[in-house]
C-alpha cells in the first residue's frame, strides 16, 4: 500500500494535504505505482519539497513481459498478450531487426526472422516515464497553485521536486540532498 507522509506544517494542515494527496492519487489510479510520497512544507520560505519513490514493478517493459516467444519454422513466433502495446512492439521490432525481417501473420501474431539472441529483453515501452509524467501531473493538483517555480531532481525509480514562488536558494539544494539520503540511502551524484 502506498505511503504518504506530510510534515513541516501544523497537524491540521498536514492532515488535509495528506488526505488530498491520497485521494488525488487514488482517483488517478496511481496509488499502486508509488512506494512512498514524502511531502515536506516550509511555509515560512515558502517552499514545498516532494520526494516520490516508485514501486519495484514500475520499470521499462521488455518484449518478454508483453508477449510469448517461441521458435518456429518461420523464425521466432511472437504472440502479443498485451494489445495496448501492439503498435510499439511492431515498430520497435522493425527498427531493431529490420522491416523485411518482421511479418504479421495474424492480428496479434508476428514472426521475426534473423532474430538477435536477446530478443525477449528488448525494451518496448518505458513505463517508468509514463508513471513519472502521471505522478508529476497529479502533484500539480496536490501542491498549492501559487508554487509555480519548480525544480526537479530525477532518479531511475523516482524524483524529488521543489515547488516555491520565490527564486531558487541554497536551502533548497540542501533539503533535496537530505530527503534523497532519507529515502534512497545516499545522494545521487
Amino acid at each position, binding site marked *: 500500500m502506498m505511503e504518504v507522509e506530510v510534515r513541516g*506544517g*501544523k497537524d*491540521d*494542515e498536514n492532515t*488535509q*494535504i495528506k*488526505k*488530498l494527496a491520497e*485521494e*488525488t492519487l487514488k*482517483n488517478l489510479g496511481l496509488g499502486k505505482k508509488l512506494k512512498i510520497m514524502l511531502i515536506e*512544507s516550509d*511555509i*515560512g520560505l*515558502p517552499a514545498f519539497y516532494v520526494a516520490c519513490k516508485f514501486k519495484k514493478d514500475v520499470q521499462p517493459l521488455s518484449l518478454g513481459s508483453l508477449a510469448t516467444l517461441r521458435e518456429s519454422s518461420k523464425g521466432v513466433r511472437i504472440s502479443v498478450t498485451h494489445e495496448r502495446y501492439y503498435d510499439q512492439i511492431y515498430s520497435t521490432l522493425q527498427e531493431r531487426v529490420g522491416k523485411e525481417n518482421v511479418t504479421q501473420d495474424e492480428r496479434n501474431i508476428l514472426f521475426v526472422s534473423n532474430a538477435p539472441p536477446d530478443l525477449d529483453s528488448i525494451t518496448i515501452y518505458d513505463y517508468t516515464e509514463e508513471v513519472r509524467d502521471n505522478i508529476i501531473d497529479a502533484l500539480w*493538483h496536490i501542491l*498549492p*497553485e*501559487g*508554487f*509555480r517555480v519548480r525544480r526537479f531532481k530525477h532518479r531511475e525509480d523516482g524524483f524529488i521536486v521543489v515547488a516555491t*514562488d*520565490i527564486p531558487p536558494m541554497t536551502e533548497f539544494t540542501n533539503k533535496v540532498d537530505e530527503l534523497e539520503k532519507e529515502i534512497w540511502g545516499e545522494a545521487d551524484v
Partner: protein
Amino acid sequence: MYVFKGGIYRHDEMLDKIHDLGGIVMQKTPMQTEIDIVFALPGYDLSTLTELAHKIKGEIHEIPFGDMEIAVVAPSLSRHHLPHPVCDIAEFLRRYGATTNIVGLARGYGKTIFQISDKERRMIAEHDAAIFSFGAFESCILEKVKETSSIKVPHIVCGGPRALDTVENYVGNVGRKSARMRSVEDIATLEEIKRMLMDETESLREEIQKDPPPYAPAYVKKKIEEQLDIRGTLGDNPVVLHLDGVRVKKPYDSFNGQVRGVKIGDTTLGDIAVISRSDMNDTIIVKLLPESQTGGGTQ
C-alpha cells in the same frame, strides 16, 4: 422570502393564493413533475398558504438568503479550487435562496504574490455579502485576510485550519477538497457558513430597516419586469434581488434609460435610486435610496 416545493398539479392554486394575499412571485422553476415557486409575502399571511400547501401535498420553506446576491470568491478558477469546495459552498447557499456568483481572482494564489485588484474589489462590493475560500495553510490565510479587511460588505473567510484566533469571521475545515462536501462533518461546516453569514448580514439588514427605501426591492423587481417586459430563461433570473436594490442583467448603454424611466407609484425609478454600470458583465446596478433622501413611499 419563501419557497413552495410541490407538484405541477394544482400549483396554479398556490400562485392565485399568493397574488390574492398581495405576495410577489419572484421565480417559477418547473422541473418535470415538480415545481419551485419563490415568493415574497408578509409573515403573518403565511399560515393560510401553509394550509393550502399541505392540501396539495407541497411544502413551504423560509429562504433566509432569498433577497441576497452573494459572491463566492476563489483564489483562481483552476482545478485547485473548483468545483470543490467553492462550488459546494455556492450550491449549498442556493438551497437557501441565494443568488450566487463565483468570482475567481486573477492573482489570488500564492503567499507572496496574492492580491485583490481594484476592479475585483468593486465587483465584490456590488454583492450583499462575500465568502472567501482560501487554502490549507494558516500563515497564508493570515496574509490573505489582510487584503480582505478593506472589503466593506459582510464577508466570511473559509480555510483549512479548524480555528484561527485572530480572525473573527472565519470558518475552518474547508481548505482544499478533492471530493464533494457531502460527509456529515462537511455538511456541518456548510451549515456553520450559513449560520455565520446570517449573523454577519443581520446588522446590515437592521441598518437598512432603520431607514428603508420607499419601495421594497421585490416590488421594484416586479415593476421592472412588467414594464420592460424582461423575461429570463429557467436557469436565468434577469432581475436579481439585493438587500437595497436590484441587479438588472441587461447591457447598461442600451437599457439604463428605460430602467430609469420605470414608473413606481407616482415617481420613476431614476428619482428614487442610484443607477450605475456594474463591473460584472456590463449589467445595471439599481441601488434604492432610503426614505430620508426620497421623501417616503407606499409599499
